[in-house]
């Protein structure tokens, strides 16, 4: 029963994904819509705007530095949550004397 239902759902998902692959623009094409506006601006003036030679680092730390701040907060929250979950007291609290 579980295998039949999972096979049905997986075939639906696979059909949708293959349809999506056929609709994507050509792999490696230089006239893709994704390369239209921000790509020439970032790669053309990365060194003069930031002084860094690694364009990925220039994007992560300078052009989109605020996203890195949010991600640092996600790391902090994840460690907080994992440490709290690991050191929680075991079992239910007793009702005597409360």
């Amino acid at each position, binding site marked *: 029963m579980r295998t039949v239902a999972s096979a049905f759902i997986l075939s639906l998902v696979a059909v949708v994904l293959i349809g999506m692959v056929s609709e994507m623009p050509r792999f490696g094409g230089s006239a893709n819509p994704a390369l239209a506006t921000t790509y020439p601006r970032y790669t053309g003036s990365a*060194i003069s*705007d*930031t*002084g*860094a*030679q*690694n364009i*990925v*680092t*220039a994007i*992560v*730390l*300078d052009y989109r*530095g*605020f996203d*890195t*701040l949010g991600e*640092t*907060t996600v*790391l*902090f929250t*994840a*460690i907080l949550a*994992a*440490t709290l979950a*690991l*050191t929680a007291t075991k079992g239910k609290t007793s009702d005597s004397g409360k």
Partner: protein
Amino acid sequence: MESTIARTIGRLVLQFIQVMGLYIAFHGHLSPGGGFAGGTVIGASLVLAVLLDIPFRGKSVLKESFVLAESSCLIVYVIIGFVGIAAGTGFLSNLSARFPPGTPGSVLSAGFMVPLGVAICLKVASTIGSLFWALAREDTQDGVWNA
């Protein structure tokens, strides 16, 4: 782990792994890598220290130093962002807030990227180290991990 060979080689190799991680983090604006990759390498060295039970100086204060590293790196990031506001431009601005640009190609260049890279490296290293430390200590008696 109780193996003598593994522990001896681990003690020798641990410092070189950490130097490699710091190199990747410091040269983030010149070669592929950056803060996150360097932090992962240093975190892996902390995992090695837990797995092989390598004694190092400062092992007793490791838990407090993890907490200190996490909080202080986030505060350093925000303070560097506020320097941009104090200079008149927006939050987290690099050359507009008159950070020194340097010559492209040298290590001390690109404004605030080196301090930010080091802060992110220490933060990711303490994340991975403290996670593995907390998960591995579930299985210990008196702080010694029996594999």
